[in-house]
């Protein structure tokens, strides 16, 4: 992909039979534009993948070649920008690769719930979330995504390195393994420094059911989002992929 701009947001969105990721990505793009009308945003659809649709998570490594930006912030599609996020560029720009670490609950406090991270803890993997990943065109970023590709393509061998591995490779685990191989410091900011997504998964937030959208009061503040009357900050990973604010 030719470089079109210095900085931009890349949102991969390949629809599946059950999930309209493109609609999710459009909602995320709209929410970013509410705060940053001039932001460069590319929704990376199936047709734009340089190597075609390899299925689900396995497409991830293609983002490096597909991005039209010299500096890219890749965002998972099922998120919503509840506040401005462009200060992240300043935070990231001196690094080649930054992957977000940890997540937070709906009261904007870092989560210490490990329900969904047992595999990481058992294998002493860094607590990475690919939901927010920055890179600049660099040999480090190239090496990282080549490693990600290699792990995805050779998952049957790589998974033997892990205790209790998933049958199929997932992006967060693959990123964490790649980070360990390259050196975690090379692809992260110091803990507590970078952005953390608000993870609306039961367990992280204290809901009784999986569908928080039916259980908690939520309000669009246009721009912005309140959940359970609390103003959210940064990116809200809404988890329930059918959730639409309008």
């Amino acid at each position: 992909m030719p470089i079109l701009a210095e900085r931009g947001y890349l949102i991969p969105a390949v629809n599946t039979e059950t999930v309209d990721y493109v609609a999710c990505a459009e909602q995320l793009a709209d929410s970013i534009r509410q705060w940053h009308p001039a932001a460069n945003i590319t929704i990376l659809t199936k047709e734009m993948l340089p190597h075609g649709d390899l299925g689900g998570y396995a497409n991830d490594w293609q983002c490096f070649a597909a991005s039209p930006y010299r500096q890219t912030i890749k965002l998972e599609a099922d998120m919503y920008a509840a506040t401005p996020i462009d200060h992240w560029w300043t935070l990231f720009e001196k690094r080649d690769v930054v992957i977000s670490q940890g997540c937070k609950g709906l009261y904007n406090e870092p989560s210490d719930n490990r329900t969904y991270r047992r595999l990481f803890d058992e294998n002493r993997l860094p607590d990475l979330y690919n939901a927010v990943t920055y890179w600049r065109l660099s040999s480090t970023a190239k090496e990282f995504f080549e490693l990600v590709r290699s792990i995805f393509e050779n998952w049957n061998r790589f998974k033997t390195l892990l205790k209790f591995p998933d049958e199929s490779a997932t992006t967060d685990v693959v990123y964490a393994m790649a980070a360990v191989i390259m050196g975690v410091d090379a692809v992260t900011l110091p803990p507590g420094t970078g952005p953390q997504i608000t993870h609306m998964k039961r367990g992280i937030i204290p809901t009784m059911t999986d569908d928080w959208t039916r259980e908690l009061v939520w309000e669009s503040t246009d721009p912005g989002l309140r959940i359970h009357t609390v103003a959210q900050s940064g990116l809200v990973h809404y988890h329930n992929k059918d959730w639409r604010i309008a």
Partner: protein
Amino acid sequence: MTQGVLLFAFNNEQIDYLAMAAWSARNIRRHLNLPTCVVTNVVDMPAGYQFDQVVAVDLPPTEQTRYFKDYKGVGAWHNKNRSNAYELSPWDHTLVLDVDFVVATNQLNVLFDIDQDFLAHRWAYDVSGFPAFHDNNWFGTYKMPMSWATIMCFRRSKKAELIFNTMQMIRDNWLHYRQLYQVSEHTFRNDYALSIAMNLVDGHTLSTPSIPWQLASVTPETKLIQIDPDTYKIQYESADSKSKWMLLTQDFHAMGKQALGAIVANPC
């Protein structure tokens, strides 16, 4: 700028809150060197009760009762006019204290030096170290962060007025807010109203400045006795079921009214 401490005291069948307020006023004078004002419905002030000012009000209209663990019984709880503190206080800079908050040091004077219009505690802890108490720092099904109304320090200001007005709105519409925040208890608590009000007034960001230390609490399950005027002994069972005791030489919230009532009746 005038300063003082505002106390609320409405007796019920079991608890003599006015006696606690009078005892607290003596401690406040000794340690904080501040005047006190009591808001009460008691018309004939008993001899020996020394408040600098008394604001006589009617008993707050309420049918509210609560279970008092130490009395093992239900009693009337007249707590619904705490949010009137803003208009009732005679001072520019006011410290509102629960009468069961034991002033044993001059630590609270620090609050008057903090350049904030309103301060309350975000965190409380059980001095005996019982870990389950920590859960009291949130309320409702979805664990909304709690602000404790045990101590409120406010300056005459738009922000403080707004917080108290909002507390009144929440009190007057408690059924709505109780449902919104999924509070299972029927009882209205000023802690809940304050927590919700702080969130509303600060733009729903939960970023309100708070008192820069935690609220020490002695639970009703803990035995409390006074050793000397400013030293207290607590006896309790630890998390590993061992009988323990410790001395307290600090300010604390005595949540067991029976034990505090006994101290107030026979002080050292």
